[in-house]
């Protein structure tokens, strides 16, 4: 059957709806009903159900669980619940001030409507290599909190993803939130992405965080989206920056390294050659902006 014959303006397959009030109860439902799907904003899950790419028999709404919706400044880190909506993150004064990189990653996702519905947990669990929110979390070395029948476990953001749509999450597990370390005062960050229009999944995106001592790079994080099966940190490029005094030449060399070390594919959003070519200029821009910002913040 032609797959479009399964697409519908309705969700055709019936399911049982659950609305637990605690993480524990949610996990219990997931355990009891293998294949059950957690629902947060619905911006990814619902279209997939309308297209019958997913046909869960049980849907577990996470938005009635208060603990999943908190944003908490914990001093050296900010904790963000998995069901916090993207628009709340964008509007959060705490996140804007303490995690400007994450704030700008989130602002680039979808439209106002999508961000009113979608959650950070959803953006991450969907595990798209193009997820802008995920890029920010990886660059900031966030920790992903996971609840399962055996209790809670924590995973580094960069190890959470295993491929497009694939994560380390077990069927009966749930992401509950993210601990995002607040970069030191002397850290400059930058996120940029390119799409075909202003409302598009990124063809390519980059997030950079540089901790500076004057013009010297103390620490560097360079993360790219849509160039690999998952958001990736480019260790080679980071190594090239760490401990060095930044010059325009070094920025350009590093950007070249970025371009050389990625192995993107061609898809409908852009060609592999494009991504390799664009990554160079984008890396120059992102590194330069992070550099300037890190230097002045000091």
């Amino acid at each position, binding site marked *: 059957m032609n797959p479009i014959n399964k697409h519908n303006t309705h969700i055709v397959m019936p399911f049982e709806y659950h*609305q637990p009030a605690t993480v524990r109860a949610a996990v219990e439902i997931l355990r009891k009903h293998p294949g059950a799907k957690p629902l947060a904003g619905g911006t990814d899950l619902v279209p997939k159900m309308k297209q019958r790419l997913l046909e869960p028999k049980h849907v577990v*709404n996470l938005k009635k669980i208060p603990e999943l919706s908190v944003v908490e400044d914990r001093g050296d880190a900010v904790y963000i619940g998995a069901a916090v909506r993207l628009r709340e993150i964008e509007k959060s004064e705490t996140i804007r001030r303490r995690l400007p990189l994450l704030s700008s990653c989130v602002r680039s996702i979808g439209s106002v*409507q*999508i961000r*009113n*519905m979608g959650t950070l947990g959803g953006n991450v669990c969907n595990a798209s290599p193009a997820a802008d929110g995920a890029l920010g979390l990886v660059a900031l070395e966030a920790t992903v909190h996971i609840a399962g029948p055996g209790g809670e476990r924590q995973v580094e953001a960069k190890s959470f993803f295993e491929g497009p749509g694939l994560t380390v999450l077990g069927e009966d597990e749930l992401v509950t939130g993210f601990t995002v370390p607040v970069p030191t005062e002397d850290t400059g960050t930058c996120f940029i992405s390119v799409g075909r229009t202003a409302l598009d999944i990124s063809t390519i995106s980059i997030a950079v965080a540089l901790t500076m001592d004057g013009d010297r790079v103390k620490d560097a994080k360079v993360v790219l989206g849509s160039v690999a099966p998952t958001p990736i940190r480019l260790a080679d490029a980071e190594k090239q920056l760490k401990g060095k005094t930044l010059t325009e030449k070094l920025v350009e060399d590093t950007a070249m390294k970025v371009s050389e070390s990625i192995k993107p594919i061609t898809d409908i959003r852009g060609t592999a050659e494009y991504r390799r070519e664009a990554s160079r200029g984008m890396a120059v821009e992102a590194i330069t902006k992070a550099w300037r910002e890190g230097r002045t913040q000091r």
Partner: protein
Amino acid sequence: MKIDVTINGRERSFDVPPNTLLLNLLRERLDLTGSKYGCGIGECGACTLLLDGEPVLGCMTLAVDCDGRTVETIEGLGDGDGLHPIQEAYLEEGAVQCGFCTPGFIMTTKALLEEEPNPSEAEIREYLKGNVCRCTGYVNIVAAVQSAAGKMR
């Protein structure tokens, strides 16, 4: 599942299967067809409505998720015979051509002006970017939002 939803100021109770989408509930049960199906995947904004005052997409919202909440659609705007200033502005500025996207745009505009009564042109364009119009090139729409902001101040 039994749900209670306030729709355009009126409390209503429904018994819906959980797979019912808010857009279909409005269109099929209440004949509130102002919210349109344009793409079904959140790309066009034609089904934009306000849920607890915030713009969301009816085509991706489960009706059961609206239990105890407030839904406002284009049909709830204005009072009786009078048009809302946003509706007036859309007409005066020639922001309406085929009109299929118009309800979604007007609802997004309402949310914007409630959030930011005095938006810059750039803010307007960013806020409206989730609503697709294929007729107007957005020029008269942006002008209408500016004009509506003036009327509402």
